[in-house]
C-alpha cells in the first residue's frame, strides 16, 4: 500500500514535471490554420455565415466554434474543400444557408441619388462614384455580396444574375440515360 503510493507519487511527479516544462516550452501563438481556412473561403465578405467577413469566420472554424457549412457563396465545393483541409466529414448546407446563383449588383442610375451609402457598405470597393453623383458598379470587382442593397434609400440597386455567354460557358456533366436496349 505504502510502496504503491510512493511509486505512483514518484511517477506522477516525474511526468508532471515533464509536462509542465513542455507546456511552456512548446507554447503556440496565433493560429496559422486560420490563414489556410481563410484562403479557401470565397472572400465575398458578405457576412452570410454569421461572422463579420471571411477572416472572422475562418478564425471561428479554426477554433472549432463554427461549422464548415455556413458559407453559401462558397457553395458545396467550398464545404468539400474545408472538409478536406480539416479532415472532417462533408456536411451539406442547412435549410437556411443555401447558395444563390452568382450575381452582380447593378445600380439604376436613373434612380440613384448619389447618397454614397452603398459605397460605404461595399466591402471590396466595387462601387465608384461621388456624393450627389451617379454611382456605378465595377462589375469585374463586385463579388455579389448584396451588402449594398439594403442601405440604398431609393432601392435602386438590384442583383443581376450572371448570364451564360460563350466566354463563360461550361461543358455540362454528361448525363446519359441508361436506356433499356432490347
Amino acid at each position, binding site marked *: 500500500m505504502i510502496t504503491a*503510493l510512493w511509486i*505512483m507519487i514518484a511517477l*506522477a*511527479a*516525474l511526468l*508532471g514535471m515533464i*509536462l*509542465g*516544462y513542455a507546456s511552456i516550452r512548446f507554447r503556440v501563438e496565433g493560429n496559422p490554420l486560420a490563414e489556410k481556412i481563410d484562403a479557401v473561403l470565397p472572400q465575398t465578405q458578405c457576412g452570410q455565415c454569421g461572422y463579420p467577413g471571411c477572416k472572422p469566420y475562418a478564425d471561428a472554424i479554426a477554433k472549432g466554434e463554427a461549422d464548415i457549412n455556413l458559407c453559401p457563396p462558397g457553395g458545396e465545393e467550398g464545404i468539400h474543400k474545408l472538409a478536406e483541409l480539416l479532415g472532417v466529414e462533408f456536411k451539406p448546407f442547412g435549410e437556411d444557408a443555401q447558395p444563390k446563383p452568382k450575381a452582380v449588383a447593378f445600380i439604376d442610375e436613373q434612380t440613384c441619388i448619389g447618397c454614397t451609402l452603398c459605397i460605404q457598405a461595399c466591402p471590396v470597393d466595387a462601387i465608384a462614384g461621388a456624393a450627389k453623383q451617379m454611382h456605378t458598379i465595377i462589375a469585374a470587382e463586385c463579388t455579389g455580396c448584396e451588402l449594398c442593397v439594403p442601405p440604398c434609400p431609393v432601392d435602386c440597386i438590384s442583383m443581376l444574375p450572371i448570364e451564360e455567354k460563350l466566354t463563360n460557358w461550361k461543358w455540362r456533366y454528361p448525363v446519359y440515360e441508361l436506356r433499356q436496349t432490347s
Partner: protein
Amino acid sequence: MKRIARSTLQTAVNLVFFAIIGTSILSATYYLTHDTIVATVKKAKLKLVSQLLPPDSYDNDIMQDIRIVAADELLGTDEATQAHIARRGDQPVAVVLEAIAPDGYSGKIELIMSIHPDGSLGGVRVVNHNETPGLGDYIDIAKHDWITTFDGRSRSLFKDADWKVRKDGGVFEHMAGATVSPRAVIKAVNRALQYFEAHRDELFVADVKPEKGAKK
C-alpha cells in the same frame, strides 16, 4: 526561466495530488476484494477438477496439496506447472496434471487431465485452444463429448499403435475432414501418460505449500 520552473513544479504537484487519491482508492479496492478473488479463482479450478474427478472420491484439500512440476518435453510445457494431488485418507487417489499439445491445427492446445495411480485416465479436458471453430473444435467439451472417450483409458490397455485416430489405424474416433486436432490431443495425452509412468512416485509426494509466482 522562473516561469518554467514554477509551472513545472505546479503541474507535478497537481498530478501527484490526483495520483495519491487514485492510488489510495485502488489499493483499498484491491485489498477489499483480494480474498474474494482468490476464493473465486479457486472455486473455478475446483469446478474444472470436479469434471475430471468426482468430488467424493477424495477428502483432502486438493487446492493445497500441490506439487510443482518442472517443464518437461513429454508434457509439452515450457515452464513449471502445478499438479494437484487427490487423496483419500493417506492414499493417493489421482493426480491432476497439465499438459500442452503443441501441434494443433492452429497452435497449442492446453489440456488438463487426472490420472489414477494405476495409470488410467480419470478424464481429460481441453482448457484452451485455437482450433477452427466448427471443424477442429469438437475436442472441446462445450462442443462435443469426443474428449470423454479418454475416460478410463490407459497405456496398459492400449499399445502405442492404438493411440491414434481410426483413420491412421488407431482406436480413437474422429470427425471426417478434421484429424489434425484429435491427433494432436491423442498424442499429447499419450505422452503425458508416459511422463506419469516415469515420474509416478515423485508425483504423489506433495510439496508443502503452493509457491508464489508459479503458474496459477
